[in-house]
């Protein structure tokens, strides 16, 4: 695998200039943990790579006017270690913690994870639950898109990494009645793609009992990261108890459409997602002690 050029710009301006200059013939690379694996099976057509891992502005995590901003080149390890994310974006910190292994987390980035658009990409699921915005810069244009809207199909997003630079993700900082949680089941405890994963955001009524609002993002339950809107609707306004949780579990199992594969049958994944939802809500609201079976 050889390239003619490997650029290491240090500002987003330089990145955009390089994209413009190469007219689709240069591709962004962050940690390379998806790109290099894909290149082995399906060689890249571009002749140049633009490494965005040395652009400080893309590696920032900050809070600004009630929104949390996460730079696209922030690594999973950075997310795991960030006090801000632990405190105000728990679902994202937990999702990042479950990615691959320490080596993969040290180089793999949240931007790469989202743009790569796998239906169960861990931080993508968390960002969908957080209803995050994607901040995109292209030569001559800036956009903000709700993250759930960029996914087009397995491995396909509306971001073209030979034209568009994702600069950051942002979501509103939670108030005291909001909770988030991440649940994941896999074949083993590390270096395993999830059989199912679930990102949860919920908001309680002022009385602290009924659910005012909820967002449930799940993977790999459809061709893209999936919002279980039917189940969300059935839970809005509910006062939580065992019975309701059980029903919600059934509801989400009915709602999702996972695929059969040798990695796990659809029926098995449907069953697990029900358990994941039930446990996610219990844990998010501290209804039960933490179980070591999930991470």
């Amino acid at each position, binding site marked *: 695998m050889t390239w003619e050029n490997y650029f290491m710009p240090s500002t987003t301006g330089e990145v955009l200039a390089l994209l413009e200059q190469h007219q689709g013939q240069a591709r962004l690379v962050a940690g390379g943990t998806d790109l290099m694996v894909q290149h082995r099976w399906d060689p890249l057509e571009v002749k140049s790579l633009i490494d965005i891992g040395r652009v400080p502005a893309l590696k920032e995590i900050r809070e600004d006017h009630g929104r949390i901003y996460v730079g696209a080149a922030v690594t999973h390890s950075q997310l795991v270690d960030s006090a801000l994310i632990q405190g105000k974006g728990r679902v994202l910190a937990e999702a990042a913690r479950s990615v691959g*292994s320490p080596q993969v987390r040290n180089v793999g980035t949240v931007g790469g994870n989202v743009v790569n658009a796998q239906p169960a990409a861990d931080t993508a699921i968390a960002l969908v639950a957080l209803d995050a915005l994607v901040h995109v810069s292209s030569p001559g244009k800036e956009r903000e898109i709700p993250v759930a809207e960029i996914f087009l199909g397995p491995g396909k997003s509306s971001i073209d990494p030979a034209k568009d630079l994702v600069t950051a993700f942002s979501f509103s900082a939670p108030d005291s009645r909001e909770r988030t949680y991440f649940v994941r*089941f896999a*074949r*083993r*405890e*590390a*270096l*395993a*793609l999830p059989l199912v994963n679930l990102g949860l955001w919920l908001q309680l009524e002022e009385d602290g009992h009924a659910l005012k609002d909820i967002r449930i993002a799940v993977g790999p339950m459809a061709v893209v990261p999936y919002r279980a809107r039917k189940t969300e609707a059935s839970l809005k306004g509910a006062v939580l108890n065992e019975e309701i949780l059980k029903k919600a579990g059934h509801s989400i199992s009915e709602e999702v459409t996972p695929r059969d594969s*040798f*990695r*796990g*049958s659809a029926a*098995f994944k449907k*069953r*697990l997602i029900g*358990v994941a939802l039930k446990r996610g809500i219990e844990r998010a609201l501290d209804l039960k002690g933490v*179980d*070591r*079976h999930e991470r």
Partner: protein
Amino acid sequence: MPGKRNVLKKGKGEIMKFSNLGKETPILDGLEKVTGRARYVPDLKMEGMLYGKVLRSPYPHARLVNIDTTKAARVPGVKDIITGKDVSQHRFGPMVPDWVILPDDKVRFHGDEVAAVAASSEEAAAEAVALIEVEYEELPAVYDPELALEEGAPLLYEEKDNNIAATFNVHSGDVDEALAGSDIIFEETYKTNQVYQAYMEPMAAVAVPGDYERLIMWLSTQIPSMSRLRYAEALQMCAEDLRIIKPHVGGGFGAKFEYKSHILAAVLTRRTGLPVRMVNNREEDFRAGNPRVPMKIWVKLGLSRDGTFLAKDTRIIAGNGARTVYAPAITSTACYRIDSLYKFKNVRSTGYTVYTNTIPTSCFRGFGNAQMHFAMESALDTICHQYDMDPIKLRQHNGVTPGFTSIHGWEIKSCALEECLDKAAQESNWYEKKKAPKQKGPVKKGIGVAICNHVSGNRPFFKPFDGSSALVRLTPEGKAIVFTGEADIGQGMNTAFALIAAEAVGLNVKNVRTAAVDTDISPFGLGSFATRGSTIGGRAVYEAAVNLKKQLLEHISRVYEKETDQITINNGNIYFDDQEKPVPVAEAMQTISYTLGGTSLVGQGVFVPDTVLPDENKYGNVSPAYPFGCHIAEVEVDTETGRTRLLNYWAAHDVGRVINRQTLEGQVEGGVIMGAGWALGEDMVINDGVLLNPNFHDYCLPTAMDIPEGHIYSYFLESEDPNGPFGAKGIGEPSLNPVPAAIANAVFDAVGVRVKTLPITPEKILEGLESG
């Protein structure tokens, strides 16, 4: 004088005291391994070396109609391409002559070798392989050994009447009569799946033209001397003209026996006159390695009301894959080795090793005995549950004891099986945990036991002989080098040999090392299999060291004018009874050597075990020493997700004698982890003959995160075997044999689900929970 007496012989009331044995000795080549300096076969580079690559069949069964290499040959850098038309079509093979160097008629599995290329770079070789045009005519194929036995199944070898590669039969006593007289009759079927050894270093060879028209082969192998014989046969050359060197090897676990691409590297070297390196990539290694023999095992057991075993009847159908490596021997082992774990009186067993259009299968730690342990030890657990017997006591009631001769004539000399059961039960709090009420909530804990036996050397494996020989050379600098043909492939045997030699001579192990195997220098050694290395190879090293010591004492006596019985050698020092100050061995050796033309002293040792080839009814003692063990697993099972986690593991082993505690623990922990991976998830998923998960992403080995760190406890019982060096027996395979059953039994204890087909997946547990 402190540390002076080095007591070797155990008399009445005398305690064995060692200066080298029983300690935690890091492997002597550990530093170079962890710092990356150790050189393995894929690290080798020779002047003018070519890179070999194999073209593998994309079909499970197909006739080769035409192969066109014109385009491939035009790739710059390509030096040679061979197909079945370019090589002799004589047949050979480790057990059954069903191998050819390359076929000219048909391919029999997805991954079968079709052609090989040698080129000046890996890229050129890969490009050429992709450009070879092969016209295949697909043939009907069969993948399941049971279906392959059916009338009308596609034949892998058309000259044969059926797909049976080998049949094994044994019947001792009268099983039917014993079953008729049994109070308890138990019958069940178990299945063990195909799993991959997952050694770190893939299959590799470098072939180099040698002087005198000889051929040098650097191999990642566990059988340097035996593969030399076989490759000489394949290459139709004299074995003496083939020199095999085994440098560091990154694991084998049974896979690294005779291998096709070693031979292809040799052919390409002989044709081009240039060195050729042939290294599998990981995917090839999955697709065409030598994975575990899958088995379907029918078990029928007859017991009396008090739990005494009266009869065992088994039938096995085993998958051989598309050509024979060692599966027939593995099937026969599954059929009858476990019969010498218990005091059976009537046993019958039939095993069929059946060709299928899948990857050839072979040895994998446990060698068939592991497969049968899963069946037998699971069956006993169910019997205990059904008839309210205690699993520990039932095994103690029926297990073999010291001095017992088994139904197949196996002479159990040393045996601490009963003590292993007691130790594991005590350390795990077995009796209390069995009585404890189950946890509330979705996650349940469970505990399970399984025991094991194995061999330390297996006489029928290599028909001409079993045994070993060694040389220990003491240099003028007072350092000793052990020469053995036994192959350390990472287990730490070379360190064990050094420790044995150091102990027997009276040296410090720091001054002893074991040389890499080189057939030009090392004695013939059968190699690493049948858990024989430290016992049989170690005993030969011991004999060589004793012989060296005798010579050394005579020379010291001559040089220092002392009687030999006044001389003691310990930890590198020579003590004289009438003299306070010791003389370092190095100093004495220099004097000895310089007064004798610079000689080294060379001790030679031979160990020929007192074993026999079994007779036609498989009767006869096959191994000099039998190791035993007891494992107890504690798991928790999530009844909502079906997921099982290992919590604690207690492994008590009768090892005869602890040579090196550190590598012993390493072997036990490694065996337990490997067994847990097999039990809880590893599986080669084959669909229509194609392996779906030929990579470490989809083939789920346990990671460090899946193993409860610090919760695998090993205990060693020293039964002091009369044949082993200082009493030592083997550990490599017994450390794995009982693991899948111990875990399956723990899962049953946790949630009442009996999984009879490996691996124990969440799906099977959920299914079991649902069906009640």
